[in-house]
Structures are given as C-alpha cells and as structure tokens.
C-alpha cells in the first residue's frame, strides 16, 4: 500500500454514520479471494454492497453516492471519514483497511474502533482518530449543515479541529507510532532491526 508521510490533514469529510459498521460491510468477503495488492481493486470494493445494488447500479441515497460526497478523495477533499461508533468490528480482514486506503481516505474519525481493525488501519497508513461522542456528533451536524466544512487533523500536535466551529480535541497516539506515521516507517522494519533481541529472547 502507498505510504505518505503524515503531518497535517486538512480536508472535507465523508460522514458514514453507521454504528457497529463491520468489516464485512466495509469490504464483502467475495473480494477477499484476490491475491492482488492493487489499491484500486480494493478501493473500488470499499462499502460496495451499500454503494451499489444487486445489479451494480449506484444506490442514489447512500452517502458516498450523494453529489456532495461522491467526489473521489484527493488533497483537501474527502480525505477524512467521520464514522459511527465501533467502526470496523468483526472480521480481522486487513482488506477493509486496504479498501479505505485504496479509496483515498487518510483519516477515520470515530468515537470507538474495533481493536484489530484499528491496528490494521495504522499498518496501512490510515490514521484512526478517537474522539468523544459529543465531538463526533458535532462533526456529523456540521457536515450535514455544510458538506464543504473542513476538519484539520494535526498529527504532530495530536489535535483534531472542526474548522467551522473552531472546536478542537486532543487524540491519543503513542510516540512510536506517531514517529512511524510521520516518517512513513513500517513495524516490520523495526522488527527486522531488532532480530538480535528476538534471538536473545529465544535463548533465555
């Protein structure tokens, strides 16, 4: 998956106000049989069965198909999803994170994430941002009133700001992972550099 160094993301948002949205919804199982790593393949499958009906026609009233939210993400536009609580529950499929990244989203904001999916997002360089339920609901209201409203996610300062209201919240991320995101570094590289410690453990 493509890696871009994180600093500040300032963008309009797609509101996906579905609580307990499981990874089967984020990407249906039939897309999991592929052995590809093509971001477009997974991006096209993102929320597929909510975006399209059984004949492949776009479902007009699904949020991602509404004219104000249908533009594909690019810098400053739709790079952020504001999601319902318990986002990414169920299956551990990293394909769900590939779908979100492949679609072009860089940040998912929610009041809570399922554990495995949150790790998967981080490993795919999509930042999961946990905010209070009040802040999440305010974002939904702001975006409903003005789909052009922007949200700023400042990784160095660990703040997320509703640019319409000026309200801001601090979000948690550990120093190690923050460094990885800001420098486009993978966990696997860290582990490979620490093989001596692993062998030491094995010989204990």
């Amino acid at each position, binding site marked *: 998956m493509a890696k871009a160094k994180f600093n500040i993301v300032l963008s309009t948002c797609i509101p996906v106000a579905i*609580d307990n949205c499981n990874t089967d919804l984020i990407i249906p199982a039939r897309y999991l049989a592929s*052995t590809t790593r093509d971001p477009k393949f997974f991006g096209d499958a993102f929320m597929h069965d909510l975006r399209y009906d059984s004949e492949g026609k776009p479902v007009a009233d699904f949020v991602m198909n509404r004219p104000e939210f249908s533009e594909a993400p690019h810098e400053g536009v739709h790079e952020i999803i504001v999601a319902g609580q*318990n986002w990414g529950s169920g299956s551990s499929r990293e394909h769900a994170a590939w779908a979100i990244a492949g679609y072009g989203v860089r940040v998912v904001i929610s009041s809570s994430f*399922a*554990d495995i999916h949150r790790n998967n997002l981080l*490993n795919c360089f999509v930042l999961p941002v946990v905010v209070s339920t009040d802040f999440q609901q305010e974002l939904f209201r702001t975006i409903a009133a003005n789909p052009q409203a922007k949200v700023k996610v400042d990784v160095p300062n660990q703040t997320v700001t509703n640019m319409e209201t000026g309200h801001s919240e601090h979000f948690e991320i*550990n*120093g190690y992972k923050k460094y990885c995101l800001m420098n486009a570094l*993978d*966990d696997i590289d860290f582990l490979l550099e620490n093989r001596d410690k692993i062998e030491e453990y094995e010989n204990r």
Partner: protein
Amino acid sequence: MGLSLFEKIWRGHVVQEVTDGPTQLYIDRLYAHEVTSPQAFDTLRDKGIKVFRPEKVIAMPDHNTPSDQQEVIHDPVGRKQVETLKRNCEEFGIRHFAMGTKDNGIIHVVGPEKALSLPGMTIVCGDSHTSTHGAVGALAMGIGTSEVAEVLASQCILQQKPKSMRINVEGKLQPGVTAKDVALYIMAQLTTSGATGYVVEYAGSTIRNLSMEGRLTLSNLSIEMGSRAGIIAPDDTTFAYLKGREYAPKGEAWDKAVEQWRQLRSDDDAVFDSEVTFRAEDIKPRITYGTNPGAGIAVDEAIPALEDIAEAERNGFLAQLDYMQFKPGEKLEGKPVDYCFLGACTNGRIEDFRAFASVVKGRRKADNVVAWLVPGSWLVRQQIIDEGIDKVLEAAGFELRLPSCSACLAMNPDKVPAGKLAISTSNRNFVGRQGPGARTVLASPLTVAASAVTGVITDPRKLK
C-alpha cells in the same frame, strides 16, 4: 497483588517494551490460511527475506474450500488463492495441510485437535476467530495481514497491551442449553463492543464444567463482543483432551508439560480491570434477531418492542429488522426457515454433531429446508463416521458434507441466496455474511437441529 492468567502469559513473551510505544511480543505459533496470507508472503519477497522460524508456522486452506467435493475449486480466483498458499509454503518451507487431505480442516478446529495449540502459548492468525485457541489456555489473537508478515519475518508482533476482564458464569446449565447459548447470552448483555480493548478470561463453575468442545465454542465467540482474546485456564479437562493427540508432548515430556501448565491460572488475589458474573440458570437457548451477534433473545422470547430500545439506537434497531424482515415485538419461534447450517469454527466439532444427531435421530428433515452439515475437519468427519453418526443423519434425510468453512462467510459455493432465512451455528449474522441479501439467525446445534426437522424456528426443549 496476584497476576491474572493473561498477565502471566503476556509477561512471559515480552521481548522488549518499545519506548513510548507498544510491546514487542514473541509468538509461539502462527497459523496461516489462504485468504489473509498471500500479500504477507509478497512483503517478504519484496524485502528479500526468509521466514524467520518456519517450524512455528502451520498453514492450511479453509475459507475457499468447497464442501461438496474437493477435487477442484471451480471459481478461478478462489482456486488461485488456494494454489498460492501451497506454492508459498513450498517456497518458504512451511508445513501445509492441503485441501482434501486427512490433515486439513478449518484452522481453528485443526489447531486444538492436533495439539498444535497448547496451554501457555501465544498464538496468532490472520483471522478474528483465532480467539478459539484461548480455550486451551493460550493467549490467541486475530491479526491483520501486515502483522502476519511481521510474524513471518520476526516471530513477533507489536501490540498495545490490552486491559483484562474476567467473565464468571456460575451454576448448572439447564437441559437444552449449550456453550453457544452461553456465548450468545453474554454477548447480548455486554454488546458487540462490550469487551473491546480487553482480553477476557472465562471462569466460574459453569465454565469448569464445560467440555473442551464447549470451551472452544465460547472462546471462538469472544471476538463477537470485541475482545482481543478469550482465555480459559487449563485444567484436567484440557489435559485429557490434549493427551495423545498428534503434536502433544509424549512420555516424560508430557508429564513435565502438565506440571508447568497447572501453574497457568489466575492467582486468587489477581485484579482485573473489569469483572462481571452471570448465572447459568438465567440462560435459555438463544437466537439472534438482528444483524450483529449481540442482537439476541431467548428462543421463546419476542424481539424487543421499539419503546424498549434507547432512542439513540432506534434507527439502527429498525434498520436491522428491516434487513431481517422481522418486526419489533414479534416472536420468531414458529417462523419458517429455508436453510440450516451446522458447522464453522464455532460449532463444527464432534460434540456439535453428536448434539445435532441426538435431536434428529428418529425424525425427518423438513421438506422446506436445505441443510448443510459440514464437519470442521477431516478428523471430525472420521470420528462422525466411526461413531455411526453419519448413519443417524442419513436415516433422518441429512447428508454429511466435506470439511470447510462452508456457509459461514460466502467465500465458497455454499452461499445462502438473497432473501432466504438461514438458522446457523456459525458466528456472524452480519448483512450479507452468508451471501448477498441472505438473512441469518444464529443458534446452537440443538436449536438448529430442532428447526431442521420442524422447518420452523424451534425451541429444542419443546420438541415432542
């Protein structure tokens, strides 16, 4: 202050604490299946590295495997994925249990039954139901494909340490109530995110009295309430189950292992971040009515009325019922079912087939029902045949299929058609889980069996 079982296993596997970061945890066993591993092997190829400890990795296909025949996978995409796993295992020197061979089956059924999963181990797999292996007293967690690559490359993962929760269940289960019902009951009380951020330990007299198969079912469903893992302290039930199995330690090594495993229990003064207790007598056979496993009721109860649902949750509640074609306040008992599925990593073990057979013996499958009875492994299938259970099933109009994940997740030919209602022993009733538009009611093998012979959702306790 005493330590919890989780804490003991965790501490024993810390390679290092990363400064202002996660813990680097050593992994004793990696299981790999065809769906979540190909891109991980690609990562190793990109980096030009080998598998660090190939002897600690076991691979087998299960998700794409057909249950009617296993000569060929007709879907070219699924076939390629299964072939890719085999090729990757050959290239990287990993033990591979090929489709259609006696070693194969669903990874979470095969691991414990071959004693590849042992007490005190850390176990991971690119599959959320890896929590199953916690039933033998291991710390077993589902991971993503990037983490599969990490384990292949280093036998480690980086994890933020979860919090600890103990769920106690006390008392004697009523007749007709199984481990599946216990799990569905707990989930309905705690919700599908009630244990997010936690590793759960199951304890109490009810859990102690569960068979190993029952415990595997319970641990399997831990992920459905968001838990990172579901551990059960090993005891004589565990040791009796593991002893003599293919990869279990033998002779003196076995005795020594058991001696160590007996230490694997939470200290009496262990403190948990959260603790809840349930009473076995409150648990009846369960079914689900919604599109998450926490949306459940006792089989003889009605779906909640709209006014019983918190206002903020009403839209979600109605959306679930709309998909399921059910109404608030409606009873589901007596509703016609189209499909019955016995199997999956949740309920694909010998005890589940014994339970199902005990209900259908001397009865006939209802004509309106398509039934898929799918053992979780070739070992389970052989045991079914050895015990003559297949004959009981056949006499009742049922057919025993071949080991596979089958109708659990719509990745092989066993898909429930759009609009059809399935009563299923699997683990997820999500929108489209068993096939686009398919409607799923989760239940125990006893409830599925009772429904399969009546053709309607049936309380197994009431079957005449």
